[in-house]
């Protein structure tokens, strides 16, 4: 995307905070994040298990149930704050304008309904009353996600399909409303690289046709490198670094981003020890004071143990949360 003709974001998230309550208190799983998503772009959201990626996705969709609670922030969809909408309005918007795809497609598919029935049900919610037209629309959208012989598949139940086929069906259903924002939460993590490649290719094609903005949640840096225009790195509920893919991956400023990149085998000498981030991510209720990464960070100093860093933005449009950012190496 060129800077001169930057359209307005389709999604603009500001200061979003979501906590989980327990007997000890309220623990922020998402701790005041800012995100923008432009039409037609892919924003990769990466981070370790428990860092808050899924909670961030659900919070944007307004799908947080007790003991969770969205406690602060705005979710501006085409300029309107979704947090101010009634549950009824939100449900309508979710069906057609915002769509979410999950790692386990069985969580969204109804096991006792045939594929075709599930799809026509969704279509009738979207106001398609003509059942014959709905049926052919269902077949058409299955074809679009690369399902062979969709006329036969609509008569099958979810358990009769392979994992890859189920995920395609879930995607076809999510895309029935032609959404402007797609949040894909690890949709290919459970699949083989071959099937992952197929599904990413289909989604890329569909997205290019529709111009939707897509947030792709994953812990696989390789996938976002190949897919995303911009990358946001989450750690302990914060977006610790965000920016254009090249800037973040080639010249990371946050020590955690660098640590993640270094720990991936790839350009490494086979058999040599990998550089590793020591320790584990802290559980929700035991996040340290100051910068939450400090117990695992080689650059940590006193100020890191005391104060949360302020967000800095650089000339590449990349921002980061760190008192002692990684120096910009001059690459050959």
């Amino acid at each position, binding site marked *: 995307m060129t800077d001169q003709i930057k359209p307005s974001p389709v999604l603009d998230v500001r200061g979003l905070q979501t906590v989980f309550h327990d007997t000890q208190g309220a623990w922020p799983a998402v701790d005041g994040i800012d995100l923008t998503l432009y039409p037609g772009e892919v924003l990769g959201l990466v981070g*370790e*298990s428990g860092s808050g990626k899924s909670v961030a996705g659900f919070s944007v969709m307004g799908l947080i149930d007790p003991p969770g609670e969205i406690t602060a922030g705005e979710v501006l969809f085409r300029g309107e704050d979704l947090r101010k909408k009634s549950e009824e309005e939100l449900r309508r918007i979710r069906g057609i304008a915002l769509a979410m795809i999950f790692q386990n497609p069985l969580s969204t598919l109804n096991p006792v309904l045939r594929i075709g029935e599930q799809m026509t049900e969704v279509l009738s919610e979207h106001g398609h009353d003509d059942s014959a037209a709905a049926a052919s629309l269902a077949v058409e959208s299955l074809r679009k996600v690369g399902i*062979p012989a969709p006329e036969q598949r609509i008569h099958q139940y979810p358990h009769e399909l*392979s994992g*890859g*086929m189920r995920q395609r069906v879930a995607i076809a259903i999510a895309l029935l409303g032609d959404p402007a924002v797609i949040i894909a939460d690890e949709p290919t993590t459970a699949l*083989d*690289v*071959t*099937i*992952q*490649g*197929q599904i*990413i*290719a289909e989604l*890329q094609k569909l997205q290019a046709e529709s111009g939707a903005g897509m947030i792709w949640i994953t*812990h*696989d*840096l*390789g*996938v976002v*490198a*190949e*897919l995303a*225009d911009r990358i946001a790195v989450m750690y302990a509920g914060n977006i610790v670094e965000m920016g254009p*893919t*090249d800037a973040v*991956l080639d010249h990371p400023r946050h020590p955690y981003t660098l*640590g*993640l*990149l*270094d*720990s*991936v*085998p*790839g*350009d*490494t000498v*086979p*058999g*040599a*020890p*990998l*550089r*590793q*981030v*020591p320790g*584990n*991510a802290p559980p929700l209720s035991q996040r340290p004071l100051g910068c939450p990464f400090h117990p695992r960070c080689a650059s940590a100093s006193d100020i890191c143990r005391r104060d949360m860093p302020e967000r800095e933005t650089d000339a590449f449009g990349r921002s980061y949360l760190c008192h002692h950012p990684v120096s910009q190496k001059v690459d050959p």
Partner: protein
Amino acid sequence: MTESSLIAADRPATENAAESADAILEMRNLSRVFTRQPVLAETLLKLAGRAPDIPVLRAVRSVNLSVQRGEVLGLAGESGCGKSTLGRMMTGILPASEGTVSYEGADVATLRGAALKDFTLGVQMVFQDPYSSLNPRQRVAAILAEPLTVHRPDLSRAQINARVDAALEEVGLDVSYRDRFPHQFSGGQRQRIGIARALIVEPQFLVCDEPIAALDVSIQAQVINLFLELRRKRNLTYLFVSHDLSVVRHMADRVAIMYLGEIVELAPTAELFADPKHPYTRTLLEQIPSVRNRKRSFSTVKGELPSPLNPPSGCPFHPRCPAAMPQCSVDAPQLQQIAPGRTVSCHLYDKDKTLT
């Protein structure tokens, strides 16, 4: 090609048949089928003398493979291709339907007494899921002591305790953790416990079945480093099963690629990645996402892994193969040696087609 030349073909370039004594584990024509239990109607048909057709799933099909002492052999392929089934047969957890597994030169099916114990203890398994492979109601110390109390009655309680502590230290866990339960650990720590449990009986050979697949990236690196260090310190041999080819590339000396129950290519790691021969291997390598690539349009492989209940005729890869020829849907290719230490099962490499 004779059976013995097929087997010799999978040895590394430096080996020759005379040195086959250096194979720690050898598989010959190893197969495993699964049949489901007949339903009532089928049992009745059978009683009436009309044999029903219960589908047979051929999970592993006639594998010939030898693992050399001290090497890391990587095993990769799509889910359902038979990696775990092969690995379980190698450890003796799962009996073979056909063929043999030899440990230190002896067919394990014939082992008795001390020799059987050598095999049972010498080959250990590390599982993918550190959550379900540990008993949630046992403390770590008990989990680690159990194999010793079962197999080493010669050891005193104090000796067992000392070994438990040593095993914890070896995998990088504090000995104060010995009284905790599995749920009190993170995924990476649980996998360390799984590794400690395998190591405590001092095995020669570890079958590692997707041992890091369930872990986060930064924790994966920690566990990979642990495997590398243990191999060096203890001179271990590994079968390292993973569908993540970047990990296989980092860990393995040789790589076997599996498709629908068969080994379709075997090569030294560097050669396999630099110059994959089998069309399926090429396809897999193209699909590895890399942090070096940017904004790729994902090319795609056709279709999915066919059901092992109903495998395609001829070459099992032919319905998806970009290089398929008319012959491929009819004749099944044989694993053949194409260079020292390199074997591949594909008609593209048939040298003299008049002989086949």
